[in-house]
């Protein structure tokens, strides 16, 4: 095992090693992404217990077979891991929302809170500025979807906009965000 200890292995190599059930590689991957994955789950769920469960689920999923399914044609490993984490966090948020559906008196005020809260919590100045540069409708659609875990249909229902409009706003918002971030300094590595 000691011979395999190559701290500089890139993420793709680590995922390949994990696909061969290499526990050391899994440990290294955890040490790289445990923080970002947990932070995303915390940001979305606002509940450390639930966030831990999601993060554990993400890593066990990677260990159990997701690493084998990784396909570098679908993005770099970092983006892929964070998309797994996002997916699981969204599932958890929606599950919780279904469970609390009886006490549902959510209003538009909640949307405003989610948007404002998410933006306030952003530490990355780059992202904050790029989001701030979007039209408010685009920003709302994106933030409700990404940080709030709402579907396009739910966002349409909650904001009163037609579904097609929400789709367009989300699409244009994400494309503009990409352009802004790329113009800034290009994709970052962890």
């Amino acid at each position, binding site marked *: 095992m000691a011979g395999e200890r190559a701290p500089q292995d890139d993420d793709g190599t680590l995922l390949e090693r994990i696909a061969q*059930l290499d*526990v050391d590689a*899994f440990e290294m991957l*955890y040490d790289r992404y*445990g*923080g*970002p*994955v*947990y*932070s*995303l789950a*915390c*940001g979305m769920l606002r509940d*450390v217990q639930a966030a*831990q469960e999601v*993060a*554990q*689920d993400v*890593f*066990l999923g990677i*260990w*159990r*077979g997701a690493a084998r399914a990784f396909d570098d*044609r*679908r*993005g770099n490993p970092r*983006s892929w891991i*964070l*998309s797994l984490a*996002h997916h699981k966090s*969204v599932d958890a948020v929606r599950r919780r929302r279904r469970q609390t559906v009886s006490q549902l008196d959510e209003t538009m005020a909640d949307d405003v809170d989610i948007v404002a809260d998410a933006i306030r919590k*952003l*530490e*990355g100045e*780059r*992202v*904050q500025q790029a*989001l701030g540069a979007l039209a408010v409708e685009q920003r709302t659609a*994106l933030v409700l*979807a*990404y*940080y709030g*875990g*709402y*579907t*396009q*249909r739910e*966002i349409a229902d909650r904001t009163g906009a037609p579904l097609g409009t929400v*789709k367009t706003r*989300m*699409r244009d*918002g*994400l*494309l503009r*965000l*990409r352009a802004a*971030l790329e113009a800034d300094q290009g*994709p*970052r590595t*962890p």
Partner: protein
Amino acid sequence: MTHEEARELIPGYAVDALAPEEARALEEHVEGCEACRRELAALRDTAAELAAGLSQVAPPDTLRARALGAARSRPGRGAVRRPWAAWALAAAAILIVLVGIQDVTLQRQITLLDSQVNREGQLLALLTSPSSKTVELSGTARGSVHFVFNPGAHEGLVIAGGLGNPGPRSVYQVWLISGAMPSSIGVLSPGKGQTTILFVRTDFRRYQAIAVSVEPGPAGSPAPTTKPVLSATLPGTS
């Protein structure tokens, strides 16, 4: 789905905001479309920046211990050899609700495997061990309740799925029976369509049967107050 339709959906997919059927259709398209794959990859990079922009919180050490512990204890794929293990694993995969055993006035010999750490590893080890035995409980209640136990390891688990509502202020309570002496191993509080699991650690040689009865909730009873609705005899433990 046409290429143009797929193109429109990719941003929503990258932020997990599509309806499930849209997401499935898009995945199918992307599988065979190089241009859409590249587009999705690029938008995932953008979405990742939304994640990375959040304030970064240090995860607790217990998370690291759990994740790595579970990986170490888990052999990977291919360990499932028996059909019941296959369904149990499938159930486990779709997020089972792991319910801790309520501390009713129980016999002391029965302790719960409460450590959250590595619970899943224990579950899998138990399910895949060649020395584990399994029984299916039968009776008047709806639903499927299996008991899987490894006599040598003194570990077992009750897997309950599809149990109906036990009635107002009632719960299902599970008992191991030694002669005429039932010992509670905990209560099942099934949600709709959920699978519930109870872990048990004890010397199973002392027991001849397992049973489920309906008892006052939420904590259950010190001893059964109603007739069992489900039961089974334990093989090879006498």
